[in-house]
């Protein structure tokens, strides 16, 4: 089982935020962590932390190996082409290490523009994901959906290798998972965000229900608060979790990372 970390990009350390991120990122790679995740849009909007994409850019520039992820993009509130460029750029700076978590739930008032409404966040998000993937993989991109349409669009840079980013669905429940399967034909990765063991078990059942089979090929990642790591390892192993991620409410100090890694 891989071990990763996630954090809010906020620092209480002396010195600049960028330097705090750099020190922690170097330590994370030295300690053998498999991944570093920025918080999802939903969490970031409720805190005074900095933008997760830009924080992750700093991690990317301080490391060479560690996988990088965003824990929950709420695509219902982000224009597909704008977000596609931000992520492609981040992947360019990261040398092809970026993965993307998607949060399909209702965006909530703190992310929606004033006066905006999203009647079908799942549908809108999936339309936008399809559009982003077209921009990442097609030299002259074309897509048509109720949410976004274009033809002949030139979007550069593209993710390294002109690839689709690995998409991690944040535990959206059985109906939404089925809709993803209908739309995309596959679920490649799935995440559980700060669920307790009982809720994790229920979420995995929902995943099995949606798939109609054991989720053996679906990469499963469980995010838990950093202080719960010692008690979560065995639970994660029993549940067949592929990666356990320690969540910090700020940029961790190298000593804290060593403690989690131990």
């Amino acid at each position, binding site marked *: 089982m891989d071990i990763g970390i996630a954090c809010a990009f906020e620092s209480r350390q002396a010195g600049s935020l960028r330097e705090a991120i750099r020190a922690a990122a170097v330590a994370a790679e030295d300690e053998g962590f498999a991944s570093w995740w920025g918080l999802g849009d939903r969490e970031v909007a409720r805190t005074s932390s900095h933008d997760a994409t830009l924080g992750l850019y700093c991690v990317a520039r301080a490391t060479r190996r560690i996988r990088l992820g965003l824990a929950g993009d709420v695509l219902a509130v982000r224009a597909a082409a704008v977000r596609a460029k931000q992520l492609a750029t981040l992947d360019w700076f990261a040398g092809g290490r970026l993965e993307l978590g998607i949060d399909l739930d209702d965006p909530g008032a703190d*992310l929606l*523009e004033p006066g905006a409404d999203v009647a079908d966040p799942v549908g809108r998000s999936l339309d936008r994901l399809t559009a982003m993937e077209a921009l990442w993989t097609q030299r002259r991109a074309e897509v048509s959906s109720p949410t976004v349409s274009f033809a002949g669009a030139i979007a550069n840079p593209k993710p390294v290798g002109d690839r689709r980013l690995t998409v991690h669905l944040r535990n959206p429940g059985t109906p939404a998972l089925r809709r993803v399967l209908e739309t995309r034909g596959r679920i490649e990765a799935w995440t559980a965000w700060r669920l307790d063991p009982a809720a994790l078990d229920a979420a995995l059942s929902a995943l099995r229900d949606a798939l109609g089979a054991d989720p053996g090929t679906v990469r499963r990642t469980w995010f838990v608060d950093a202080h719960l790591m010692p008690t979560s390892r065995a639970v994660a192993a029993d549940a067949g979790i592929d990666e356990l991620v320690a969540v910090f409410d700020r940029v961790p100090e190298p000593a804290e990372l060593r403690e989690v890694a131990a």
Partner: protein
Amino acid sequence: MSDSSTRGGVIGARGRVEIGLVDLFDGSPERDLDFMAEFARATENAGFDGIWMPEHILFFERYDSVYPYPEAPLAANPDVKERHNKVVEGKAQVESAPDQGLLDLFQTAVEVCAATTRLRFGSSVLLLPLRNPRILAREALTVAELTGGRFDLGVGVGWSAEEFAACESDFRTRGRRCEQLVHAVTGAWRGGLDEGRALPVGCRAPRVLVGGHSPAAIRRAGTAADGWYPWNLTPAELADGLRTLEEHVEASGRSRDDLHVIAGFRGVGELSDLPEIVRRYAELGVDGINISLRMTADNYDEVMAEVAQTLGLDGGEAR
């Protein structure tokens, strides 16, 4: 770091004029990470004050939309404009390569500022109507934090209906939306947020400069923003715009000293002629002048050195 006000260079009606270069980083093999750092350091070492990068989310092979800045004032005789963009079926087209790209402005800003010590980085200009203001307010504060306060947020309304459609934004109402978003973002920075929302604290928000020279753009700059950033104007046009700007500034109870005005232009003609247009702009009281020189990866250091020398900037050599 050196204080901009004590450095040498171009002196205008309001004191020292910051000279910036408009150029791009596109993620191409020719403009890789090493290039970015070397270009940024060369700019700083030559004595320029900033790098400004345009924004397009997408390009298209052909546009029905008309590129609005096809004519630039001649360096040697800035009262005269010369058309430099190609025209297809009567419509001026933007200058771009067949597979043109541009990196994300914000990540590029952090990269450039990390490679330098005093250089500023600005957006020339960010297409504001395409953004969700709730997200943009935080992004811009983070850029300000990660660049050590060296980021300027130039904003504009764009000109490509094709790009707006692909970015899910209404082209016809982009001006009104731009104004709403300037208010929304700057209001959020001042603490005028909706209940329950928080933004990073302890970092100073970037300057917001409104691009364009339409009456509406000048009004937005004078009433809602921290500055004005017109492009490719003759000195007479710039003088008219500055007069209008000052009327709006006064009407909104502010002072011209509250605003930062940067005049930008595409350099057309000989590099040795640049001092003439720069002098004319500076005499009109701009705070900064941005020049697009369309430099290549092979010639940028020589071009920067020549321009720095001809303008009397503080730098020694580009590299």
